[in-house]
């Protein structure tokens, strides 16, 4: 065996290093095929068998999905569905990278807004326009999953990002549950405070949940419906009068939220409400199951902080169509993934999901037996605004704009808070 010198060995290692460098210099971009001119293809058909990964962020719904998976497996021999669950924030940040390879998330859910847009651009969706599932949905609620002529996703949940109210405490304080304008809303808070309870439990220390109130506050204040998209595009500004007016209304709320609200995380905020220490929880109906789990026994309804002065606002509430179900274009088992989505979209199964998780769904002909959902069902018929904060495609812009409200509650002047938010927006135009 011939001997090699140190110099030769170093040359070999150097060559390896150079090889690594050359490999590293491969250009960015990946295997993701962007949607072609003809648009995304429908999921491939075939036998409903094999393993399906279902990626989502609703850890609290795991047991309900487990039961639905059992029922699905009983219907299709040889099919297995495994849930791949991340926390909502991690899902927001990482899902796209995890799913684009196709090994995770044959079927998946996305948030409305920036995430749906990015998934669309990355070509991860298949077109469900001609699927069996799409026929089961209420037509008016499908728009959040559409791109041009394609129905890329099916918005499964309908939630109301509005304060939930403890009706017992409202009755006891003699407070009006449906204030007609801003003064009436403040008078209602005053009555609740006089009765010795915290009027509003607000998780100001949690960016995501604290920001839900923004949907209500901006709905009737903004001059247009796509106000957040226009702020992001520079057509509207946080320093505009209507925005400053909204921030002043946040300032009005300061005496009515719990002390040190900007440091309160979502769980303690839920506890204040569940324990009857606070009359409202300013997050949304998606926390119904959570507060029941924490021991809330009282009847719950929703309250819309009507920001108008004359009660003639365009909207009576706010809603969001989210948890947008899709089939992964990179999946090796599209047939089974599509069948799983079809299964979830059947009224009977959607009803089971809704009643067990205390969330309304976009599927038509669903019978709500859950008492909370029954009580909130009239909100499905009201004129509600589609949650505005999900119009933001840039998360830095969204966080900065919403942070202006938190800053006001912590004592910053509305003008200063608005200017700080606008600075971040301007930097990203």
């Amino acid at each position, binding site marked *: *065996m*011939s*001997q*090699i*010198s*140190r*110099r030769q060995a170093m040359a*070999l*290692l150097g060559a*390896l*290093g150079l090889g*690594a*460098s050359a*490999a*590293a*210099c491969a*250009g*960015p*971009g*990946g295997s*993701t*095929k*962007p949607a072609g001119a003809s648009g995304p293809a429908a999921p491939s058909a075939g036998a409903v068998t094999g393993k399906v990964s279902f990626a989502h962020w609703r850890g609290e719904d795991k047991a309900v999905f487990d039961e639905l998976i059992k029922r699905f497996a009983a219907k299709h021999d040889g099919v297995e569905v495994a849930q791949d669950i991340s926390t909502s*924030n991690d899902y*927001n*940040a*990482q899902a*796209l*990278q995890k799913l*684009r390879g196709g090994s995770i998330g044959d079927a998946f859910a996305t948030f409305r807004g920036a995430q749906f847009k*990015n998934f669309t*651009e*990355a070509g991860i969706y298949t077109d469900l326009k001609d699927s069996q599932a799409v026929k089961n949905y209420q037509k008016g609620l499908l728009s959040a999953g559409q791109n041009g002529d394609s129905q890329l996703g099916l918005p499964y949940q309908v939630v109301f990002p509005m304060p939930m109210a403890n009706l017992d405490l409202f009755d006891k304080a003699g407070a009006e549950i449906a204030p007609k304008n801003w003064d009436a809303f403040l008078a209602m808070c005053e009555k609740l405070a006089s009765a010795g309870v915290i009027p509003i439990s607000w998780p*100001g*220390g*949690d*960016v*995501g949940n604290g920001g839900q109130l923004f949907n209500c506050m901006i709905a009737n204040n903004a001059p247009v419906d796509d106000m957040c998209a226009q702020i992001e595009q520079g057509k509207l500004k946080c320093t505009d009068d209507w925005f400053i007016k909204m921030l002043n209304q946040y300032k009005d709320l300061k005496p009515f939220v*719990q*002390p*040190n*609200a*900007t*440091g*309160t*995380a979502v769980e*303690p905020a839920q*506890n*204040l409400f569940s324990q009857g220490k606070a009359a409202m929880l300013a997050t949304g109906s998606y926390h119904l199951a959570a507060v029941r789990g924490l021991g809330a026994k009282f009847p719950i309804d929703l309250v819309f902080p009507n920001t108008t002065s004359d009660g003639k606002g365009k909207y009576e509430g706010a809603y969001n169509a989210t948890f947008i179900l899709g089939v992964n274009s990179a999946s090796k088992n599209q047939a089974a993934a599509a069948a799983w989505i079809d299964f979830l979209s059947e009224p009977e199964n959607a009803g089971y999901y809704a009643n067990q998780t205390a969330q309304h769904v976009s599927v038509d002909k669903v019978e709500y037996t859950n008492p909370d959902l029954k009580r909130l069902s009239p909100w499905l018929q009201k004129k509600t605004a589609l949650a505005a904060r999900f119009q933001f495609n*840039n*998360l*830095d812009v969204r*966080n*900065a704009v919403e*942070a202006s409200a*938190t800053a006001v509650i*912590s004592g910053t002047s509305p003008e200063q808070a608005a200017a700080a938010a606008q*600075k*971040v927006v301007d*930097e990203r135009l």
Partner: protein
Amino acid sequence: MSIHPGTAAKRKATDSPAPANPAKVRRRSPTRVNPALYLFPLPAVAVVAFFLVMPTLQAFQYAITDWNGFSAAFNYVGLDNFIRAFTKDSLFTNALTNNLKFVLLVVIAQTVFSLVLALLLTKNSRGSILLRALFFFPTILSSVSVAFIWKFIYDPNFGLANSVLRTVGVDGGAYLGNDAQALYWVAVTQVWFHSGQMMVVYIAGLQAIPKELYEAAEMDGANKWQQFKSITWPFVAPATSIVVAYTTVQSFKAFDLILGIAGNPPKSSLDILSTRIYSTFANSEFGYAAAQSIIFMAMIALVTWLQRRLLRLTPKGD
């Protein structure tokens, strides 16, 4: 007295008769080894090349593009991402300022605190060993657990801190909800988390100091402070060097602690460079996030180097 094997071998070589062409033999002998030996570093080299060298080089390449992280199309933008970071992105400069402030706070507090603990617990008595274990305990917890423990402590409604303070009629405030104070509260958590670990480094350094030096100093009439200044501090300088460098890097990368305690994304008063890079990445600005990562890397290297020079923990030429 033992003789080093290398010394013995050299001596043996010297004792043997001189070869015909000594220069040639000397040159061949140390460099010729069994080629199989060269296979040993290959796995390590391959791992480092694949997981460290390649991603680092790729980061440099991505940093000059506007790649969003998923599409096939991208443009080369030169140094625009770097210019943007320093001139057109107040969120980045805010994170940088927060990070430097956080590092400074933690490095000073953690170094002093761990040194004081080490000085108090150097002796190998039963009590000291028990206390060392107690102070070391937080180190074995995961960052996420620590974050959740302290998130509960700082909760203004049900948290431990305010509950205790309320018993004496004091309201501690919003803690993490107070933008002016939030970073300091997280620094307290970081110091609590890692001081025990640094204490152990110091104890090892302190126990290596010859006792005779203290005895001699005492005989010369030196008081405790003089003994510390002239014996302890110079002798624990290598330990300090490790503590300061490690704490600096650790504080720069307090990603999981911040995310756990402040949520994702953290509000701007708690945003540090690592969380900002993550937010930029999550915002589908992969190229810009890569540029921020390179700045981050340079910043850690610069701060660590400056510290070592300013504190004179590394003698010139080392």
